[in-house]
């Protein structure tokens, strides 16, 4: 365990920018946009609904995707929470969780893909692999630490960034409400923060498992390619798909790849909510095919890392 934690620490030192600065920067940029939007009233934000009545008995329309955000509008929206229908409330608070979740999920997938594509290749390119291999660390331990970083710790950091963004967002809105003597307790009651966050965790975990063949493939390419891992990781499946369609007139591989890279499948759990949906997704054979393929790719990557000095 000490070795794995040392290896993880080493990976963090090497990829500080991607692992730490990138998610935190995204979080800070979002917060800055939020503050600008609130202060200028010109931003777009994900409060949605059809029609709500404000404290001045006027009706305010909100676009489904978003609406202009300003202090006045927030105050009116806060005051009219009770008059929203249950469906509109659910829709509004769903957007509150869903949009940052999708954004940070995209960030962690991008970081994981970039990191896994380059990590083993870079060690060989700068020849530091000879130093790492002169230490009592097995190839499996090295790959394990890289997978833990990309598929557990980076998502965890992105999750923390999302939570911080939520809390800052809510604190700003609540402060505005309190300052203008509008009760904000209803807002906090309706948000279902814990449930929303636990759905996010499930969504992150499910997307990691669902996309395991992609992550496995990227670390496999990184373990053996002698040039441009990014290009090779795209070219090899691309050529294989082309070959299959030209020679066999079929597109099984393309369908399979689409299935595992399909964003609606990745986001499926939080969108539909409940545990039943989770069970449905867990009962899909494609999930287990994907896990098996991903594991096989990872085992192959381990074999190549051990073998690679023979070149």
């Amino acid at each position: 365990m000490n070795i794995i934690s040392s290896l993880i620490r080493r990976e963090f030192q090497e990829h500080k920018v991607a692992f730490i600065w990138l998610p935190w920067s995204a979080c800070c940029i979002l917060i800055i946009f939020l503050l600008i939007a609130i202060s200028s009233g010109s931003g777009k934000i994900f409060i949605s609904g059809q029609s709500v009545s404000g404290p001045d008995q006027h009706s305010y329309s909100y676009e489904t995707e978003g609406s202009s955000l300003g202090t006045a509008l927030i105050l009116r929206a806060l005051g009219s929470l009770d008059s929203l229908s249950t469906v509109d409330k659910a829709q509004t608070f769903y957007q509150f969780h869903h949009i940052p979740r999708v954004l940070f999920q995209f960030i962690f997938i991008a970081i994981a893909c970039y990191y896994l594509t380059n990590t083993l290749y870079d060690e060989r390119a700068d020849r530091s692999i000879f130093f790492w291999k002169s230490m009592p660390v097995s190839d499996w331990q090295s790959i394990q630490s890289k997978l833990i970083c990309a598929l557990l710790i980076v998502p965890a950091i992105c999750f923390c960034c999302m939570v911080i963004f939520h809390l800052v967002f809510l604190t700003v809105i609540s402060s505005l409400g309190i300052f203008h003597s509008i009760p904000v307790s209803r807002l906090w009651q309706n948000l279902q923060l814990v449930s929303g966050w636990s759905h996010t965790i499930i969504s992150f975990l499910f997307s990691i498992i669902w996309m395991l063949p992609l992550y496995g493939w990227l670390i496999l390419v990184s373990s053996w390619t002698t040039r441009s891992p990014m290009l090779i990781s795209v070219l090899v499946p691309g050529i294989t798909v082309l070959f299959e369609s030209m020679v066999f007139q079929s597109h099984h591989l393309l369908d399979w790849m689409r299935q595992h890279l399909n964003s609606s499948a990745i986001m499926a759990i939080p969108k539909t909510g409940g545990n039943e949906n989770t069970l449905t997704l867990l009962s899909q054979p494609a999930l287990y095919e994907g896990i098996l393929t991903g594991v096989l790719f990872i085992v192959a990557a381990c074999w190549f890392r051990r073998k690679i000095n023979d070149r």
Partner: protein
Amino acid sequence: MSIISAQNLHKRYGSQLALDGFNLKIDAHNIVGLIGPNGAGKTTLLRAIMGLNEVQGELKVLGLNPYSQRHLLMNRSAYIADVDTLPRWMKVKDLIRYVTRVHAQFDKEKVKNILSKTSIKQDAKIKTLSKGMVTQLHLAIVCSLNTELLVLDEPMLGLDIIHRQAFYDRLQDDFHKGNKTILISTHEVSEIEHLLTHVVFIAAGQSILCTAMEEVTKRFYKVMVNDSRLEKALKLSPISQRSTPKAHQLIFENANPEQLSEIGELSTPNLAELFVAYMRDIQ
């Protein structure tokens, strides 16, 4: 007990044979010099010994299969490859911290002590160090690993003579204090000659000489012969002949020293002369 035991090692890269039936046996507490021309198979052999290359044949290092048990072997051995391999993005102190955490035999105080005598700052990033300083740092780390086996492949690349001498002194000191076995490959033959207990010549992937340094003085003779006695000397079958403007230098193996002293000035060849003699013999 043998620290390294290699029998009939073969390694091929495409059409090129890097190791061709190589045999080697190294016992504990020796300093062995591995000497060979470029492309002789030195690096391939040392990487095989450290478990970085898979080779055909029987190879045991500290009783382990180096390829399949590399991580166990590295607990008991230390290795420097023939190229600059330290991670350039790391800071010196982070590198020391990393080795401290993963290597149970690492003496942190010793490395700090060695580095305190150099101009290497612990806060410096490795990429800001000169080539010689990177080598010094790597040698300091490797010398601070209290392992049974130390394998060095061209460790002095980029080091000036002062630091090379300091390294040899430290190596000798460590060797006499502990129960260490050292296998060192270098082209600086004359600099390490006095350190060695054994020498191995390698050429075309084969071991062409493997002997104790004591044996070298008993087994090989150098005779400087003038023109008038050259013909007589050649009849005694020297393993090599090299002509200089003043005299002819002939190297003999297992010859009668009394007989040799009659034909010219007799002395013991140094390793460089012996190596050149062997290489000429092969070519």
